[in-house]
């Protein structure tokens, strides 16, 4: 049941976007998010959507997988939409459609909802095309300058990668504990919300105790393999920018330029 649970939803294939350096993808995602926020009208959002669709096309990920990511935040999108629709600050000259709903309010609500959807879809392109491991490597490399001000970059990256490493292990253990509790008559599927939450306690406690035991053993295993923190440490995998990254960066720069021009009505 929980066996196939992995962090993110990496879609394994080889494509232009998959082969990009994770740092490039992280930075370009930030640029894309900025573009979506800077966009002041629907033309800007349309340009972002076009950019996204091209990125998806070059990632060899089915569009459906990207759209699926919206599903998880559908409630949030709907909530934002309704909130903006009903609480739109009415101005002089707005056309009322019915009750408190105005045409301008409807447009503004649609605008914010599309912005949200675009943001989530963009982030999912990153997680669909990048393994959690290389994502961690990318974050570590990008944060590296912070180590000069004594920020524990290496430790943070190690914590992240160990967490990722243990997700499948702990998921398996959770599965085992649930089955063991069910075999002893544990009931997780009936009663109201509070009853069900309370039923989780006999799962969480053994899981937590087990996690501490694992941490202890892992610590021993790390010590046995000469771990001594970040000093004098080398790195086997090195990230490398290639020509591909330059193309992607130029393409993203074009998006930002386009959005700014569209904002000013230049195009």
């Amino acid at each position, binding site marked *: 049941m929980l066996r196939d649970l992995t962090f993110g939803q990496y879609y394994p294939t080889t494509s232009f976007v998959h082969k990009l350096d994770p740092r490039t993808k992280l930075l370009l995602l930030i640029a894309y998010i900025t573009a979506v926020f800077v966009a002041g009208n629907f033309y800007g959002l349309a340009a972002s959507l076009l950019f996204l669709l091209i990125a998806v096309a070059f990632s060899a990920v089915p569009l459906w997988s990207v759209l699926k990511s919206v599903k998880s935040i559908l409630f949030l999108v709907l909530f934002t939409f309704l909130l903006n629709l009903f609480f739109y600050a009415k101005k002089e000259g707005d056309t009322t459609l019915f009750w408190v709903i105005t045409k301008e309010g409807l447009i503004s609500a649609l605008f914010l909802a599309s912005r949200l959807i675009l943001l989530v879809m963009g982030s999912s392109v990153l997680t669909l095309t990048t393994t*959690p*491991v290389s994502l961690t490597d990318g974050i570590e490399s990008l944060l590296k300058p912070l180590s000069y001000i004594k920020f524990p970059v290496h430790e943070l990256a*190690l914590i992240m*990668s*160990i967490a*990722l*490493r243990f997700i*499948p*292990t702990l998921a*398996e253990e959770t599965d085992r504990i649930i089955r063991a509790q069910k075999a002893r008559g544990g009931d997780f599927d009936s009663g109201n919300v509070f009853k069900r939450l309370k039923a989780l306690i006999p799962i969480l406690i053994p899981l937590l105790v087990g996690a501490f035991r*694992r941490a202890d*053993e*892992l610590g*021993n*295993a*790390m*010590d*046995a*393999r*000469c*771990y*001594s923190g970040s000093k*004098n*440490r*080398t*790195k*086997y*995998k*090195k990230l490398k920018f290639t020509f591909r990254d330059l193309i992607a960066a130029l393409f993203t720069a074009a998006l930002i330029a386009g959005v700014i021009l569209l904002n000013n009505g230049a195009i």
Partner: protein
Amino acid sequence: MQAISFENVSYSYKQADAEYVRNAVDGVTLDIEEGKFIALLGANGSGKSTLAKLINGLLLPVSGEVKVFGKPTVGDDQNGLFEIRRRVGMVFQNPDNQQIASIVEDDIAFGPENIGIDREEIGRRIDRALKVTDMEAFRYSQVSRLSGGQKQRIAIAGALALEPDILILDESTSMLDPKGRKEVMEVARSLNREKGMTVINITHYMDEAAEADEIYLLKEGKLVKSGTPDEVFSDTATIRECGLELPRPAMLAEKLKAAGIISNVKITSKEELAEEICKSLRKN
């Protein structure tokens, strides 16, 4: 040369508000020669794992001295301790709790990265370690998808990447199925035979112990007997006292001797037993 020597070594785990603490390892003196395949036997709580952790300095003796290739394990000599840990590879019991990275090659790289080996050399070491453990096909696999035996072989590969002289298997086969056990033992044996590596196998499987060059038998932290498998297993009374069972062939041999069918009791393997039975059949 002595790979490992213990001189009157004791260790006890600190316990809050305990008046009397039994020593987990109690006055152990032993010498292990380089290139030997050693089995460390004992029931649960006999101090086997504590003894193993004393060898690579994960634990430091409360009294006495542990020496690895002549160098004592002392806490205030960090560099010396790291050198000892590099030379003493260790594989633990639970196959799930030893890998640091999600991908096999990244995990094997962890050790050499820690001691500052350069990238090309790490790559070569990964190649070699995977070859010896016969795991080349899994270089880019996810650790979590491997079987228990495969995970333990990756743990061995991770230790080998530090190019150790001694390999300690701390009950590394106890959580594996028979197939996984066989795989791990085969790797350990070939390392011992072909590379001359000193292997210390901590186990409670008698058939594994029977294959060792020497056996050390522990009871309540004390070393009660040591010697070749034949010598140790012929002392059936001590084996039982330690809460252990004889290997199956030895058990059968003991019964056959009691019934007066065979006369030799120094039997540990199936082959020896078969020969002995044939001999007595021929005589009659």
